[in-house]
């Protein structure tokens, strides 16, 4: 039987392959790189050191994906760290978000009794609104042109659930979505570092600052998957590579074939239908359907011949915003760093955030608007070797750092090859301020710029979410209006990556939703 070809073995590609296989549609997954995983990988950073090269925490992963793919039985161990997050205040004081809410409230009380009192209610509110949104993330966005019966039914159900929220929450939802996340957190809290820790979830991976309108929606979408105000920081023991390798096993067992080192250079369209893919080495593989987990721009602007697409559609895809602003710096360390105000390594088991206030985050963003690297970047840090000592030699550690903002395009066309060291220096300096002597622990460092994200990992514009999660690029607009149902204007060409609804980080929603939609159509 002619297989369905899936382009890219990132987590969404693998999840789609698994669900299609389970539905009786075997897939051939083609991965350009020598390993599976896409942006969810663990690779050797230096001899004896393994780092989560790109993603370091899960989004968290959709529980049904974990269950259906039996990832637990395949050796994936999800870590729910305690504390979940340590955020450093401007004066260096750490605010510790423990897994136990009461402990977190106590910690907040050290900053503000008023905020401590507001925190549980904020958490509950976020959970209620998140619970309303969660089913929306699982649905295929309806067509706005001619919604079918089942779509109308979904809309009706959503409408009823909206009313069931009650007036207060219903209006909150309407107000919060288009809001700037900075305004949203200021309605609840006065403590800078607490505001920043929550608001950061509204700007992670985006080309937006906390004052950008619509970042409220990003926070709410994240809360739909994970309602803990500052994030529950679910990690994978051994790094995300362990997760995607297990996903690959599950997909294979469900009937998929996975080939690495197989770069698709072109999607062959015959008679308006996707008929085959051509590999970089010239081989052509006939396909019953082609499903791309690559981002929309890569798919439609690089892999498809423009003559096969309508110019209006092409213009819209070109206008799909995917200017990345996140960079990654991974460190091999000779020992565990000592952070001021933290008793010891157990406190470093979750995420660490250097981004003490809304103003700090916004200033970091400001630089990127003019094509500059943040002089004082916002950092999201994990030390994965604390959970899996095999990731580093005895006593040594790896540290994984997300740094924002690092604009894809630098001012005056300065090449990133020149700027990478400046970025790393800014990161080291920012960490050193809280962990004096940090610089001396560095055995090796790896800098992944937005340019690398594009050239090495195939993310157009270096956008880790495949495209801005802004209001005009969400839900029925992701990637563009009329094509949010995982289909494309080319028959039998589908999308299943983060550039489709619901998108996001290491969550798996896009792959799962897309497989459901595509399987139903292919089995017709």
């Amino acid at each position: 039987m002619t297989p369905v070809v899936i382009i890219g073995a990132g987590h969404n590609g693998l999840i789609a392959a698994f669900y299609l296989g389970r539905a009786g549609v075997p897939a051939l997954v083609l991965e350009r790189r020598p390993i599976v995983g896409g942006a969810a990988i663990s690779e050797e950073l230096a001899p004896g050191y393994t780092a989560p090269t790109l993603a370091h925490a899960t989004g968290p992963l959709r529980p049904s994906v974990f269950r259906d793919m039996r990832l637990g039985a395949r050796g994936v161990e999800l870590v729910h760290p305690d504390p979940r997050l340590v955020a450093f205040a401007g004066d260096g004081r750490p605010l510790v978000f423990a897994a136990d809410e009461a402990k977190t409230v106590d910690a907040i009380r050290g900053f503000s009794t008023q905020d401590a009192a507001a925190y549980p209610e904020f958490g509950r509110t976020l959970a209620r609104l998140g619970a309303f949104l969660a089913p929306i993330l699982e649905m295929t966005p309806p067509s706005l042109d001619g919604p079918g019966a089942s779509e109308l039914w979904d809309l009706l159900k959503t409408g009823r659930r909206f009313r069931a929220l009650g007036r207060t929450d219903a209006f909150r939802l309407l107000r919060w979505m288009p809001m700037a996340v900075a305004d949203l957190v200021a309605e609840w809290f006065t403590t800078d570092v607490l505001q920043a820790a929550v608001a950061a979830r509204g700007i992670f991976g985006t080309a937006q600052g906390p004052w950008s309108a619509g970042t409220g929606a990003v926070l709410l979408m994240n809360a739909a998957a994970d309602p803990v105000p500052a994030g529950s920081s679910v990690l994978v023991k051994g790094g995300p590579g362990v997760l995607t390798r297990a996903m690959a096993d599950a997909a294979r067992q469900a009937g998929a074939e996975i080939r690495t080192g197989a770069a698709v250079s072109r999607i062959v369209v015959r008679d308006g239908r996707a008929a085959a893919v051509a590999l970089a080495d010239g081989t052509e593989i006939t396909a019953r359907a082609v499903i791309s987990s690559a981002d929309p721009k890569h798919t439609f602007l690089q892999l498809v011949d423009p003559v096969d697409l309508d110019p209006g559609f092409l213009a819209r895809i070109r206008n799909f915003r995917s200017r990345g602003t996140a960079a990654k710096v991974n460190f091999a360390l000779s020992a565990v760093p000592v952070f001021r105000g933290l008793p010891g390594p157990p406190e470093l088991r979750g995420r660490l955030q250097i981004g003490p206030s809304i103003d700090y985050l916004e200033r970091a963003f400001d630089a990127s608007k003019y094509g500059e690297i943040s002089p004082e970047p916002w950092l999201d840090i994990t030390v994965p070797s604390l959970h899996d000592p095999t990731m580093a030699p005895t006593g040594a550690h790896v540290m994984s750092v997300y740094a924002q903002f690092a604009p894809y395009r630098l001012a005056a066309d300065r090449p990133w090859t020149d700027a990478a060291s400046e970025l790393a220096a800014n990161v080291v300096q920012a960490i050193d301020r809280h962990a004096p002597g940090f610089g001396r622990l560095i055995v090796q460092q790896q800098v992944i710029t937005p340019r690398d994200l594009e050239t090495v990992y195939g993310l157009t514009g270096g956008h880790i979410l495949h495209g801005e999660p802004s209001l005009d690029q969400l839900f029925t607009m992701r990637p563009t209006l009329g094509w949010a149902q995982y289909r494309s204007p080319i028959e039998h060409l589908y999308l299943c990556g983060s550039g489709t609804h619901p998108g996001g980080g290491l969550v798996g929603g896009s792959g799962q939703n897309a497989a459901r939609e595509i399987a139903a159509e292919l089995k017709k």
Partner: protein
Amino acid sequence: MSHYDAIVIGGGHNGLVNAAYLARAGRRVLVLERRHVLGGAAVTEEVFPGFKFSVCSYVVSLLRPEIIRELDLPGHGLEILPLDGTFTPMPNGNYLWRVNDHATTRREIARHSKLDAEAYDEYGKAMVDMGRFVKPILDMTPPDPTSLEPRGLMDLLFLGRRFAALPVEDKYNQIQLMTMSAVDFLDQWFETDVLKATMSASGIIGTFLGVRSPGTAYVLLHHYMGEIDGAFRSWGLSRGGTGAISNAIGDAARKAGAEIRTSTAVSKIIVKDGAAVGVVLENGDYLTAGVVSSSVDPNLTFLRMVGAEHLPDEFVADVRRYKYRGSSGKVNLALDSLPDFRSRPGPGAHLRGAVSISPGVDYMERAYDEAKYGRYSRRPYIDMVIPSLTDPSVAPPGKHVMSCFVQYAPYHLKEGSWDDHRDAFGDTVIDTIAEYAPNIRDIILHRQILTPLDLEREWGLTEGNIFQGELTLEQLFFLRPAAGWAQYRTPVRNLYMCGSATHPGGGIMGAPGRNAARRILKEAGGR
């Protein structure tokens, strides 16, 4: 003690429109204005002998044509003069000069970019289509999406149907307009920096947002609304200044029987058993009324005049949360002669329109960045007009008045108060203009500097917001000014809102005053 069917608080354009419609329906109406002159922020004053300024609001485009018609404003002396074009001088000696005549503007844009000249046609067409969709929404009372009231459901259904009936490209544009930043939206059409900067400026006026902030694209549409309605196409000046608009509306109201008192400040709205029954003036007089209609902002109306004790807690929390954050100032200059722009020397038609200091997108965005951290822009966005060129009656012969709208001037300064910074702010504005028209320093006879603090003190605009509250998505339509209270009603029976803090918001539009009057007449009957 006198009794009125309705007392309208505030004699700004919305208060006056509201009063005029109520009076025309036969109600006995009293308008109370705190200042010595009518008009609120739509006011003309002789600030310096012989020089008359549209002190605050200075151009008109959005005034609803049905108001002009129904109140017969031309018959009451309203005359709109054209304000043709926008001239943007550039630091490199070049300029961009857009005028109402489409072909001329196209040629001018082609001088900067041929592609942009092509796109300008399509853009204009798309905006007109969008505007047609939005227009009926301006005149509608926003439905409550959480209520099961059949009327609200019908309205929602109406909106949904209209949206569904749009061609797909229009749907796409409409969603983009509602959510995108002005620059991101314009980036899809144009490549010329100065063109995008000048066009995007309309998206930030009266907001605490930058041209790259999502949500600013929507306001681009407002520039096309005048064109769609065909009343006076695009922007205009009112002969005698914007105060003449207020005076015409005031005359229409008086003619319909309304009584208008200036220099009469309201200190309290009296609430008995959950209903407004009248007002107490600052001089202690007590006036009773069947309906109180407030055109001042929610902060003054509810927190100062009504008092939180008469209101539900949740509503009070919403009113406190409502964002004002004034971000603009005004500098009014009395000039001995005309400014001379380096990029287009001498007098000429370019001075008869607006002159915009908006040379680039980054320039605009940097101006915003400073405001975010609590200081006024070192190099602000300035929109200037010289009404005396079109209407010589506002200045002595040979002299001129120039009105400069300046953004950003944040109400909340990080250091010091506006009283300490007022003059330095004025200097900054003049220095900025001097970079393009160096003679400006030599021709200034007098200057009046209005900071957001002054707008608050003198005009009762909380935090100096010219629209009585930011025009951001979470404060528009059924969320303006508070969730569940967007229908001109308030939690206090017989108390209504009719100012810019209600749908559809600010600018000299008059729609809030008219929409509110309809609501009052239908509901309370006003008797």
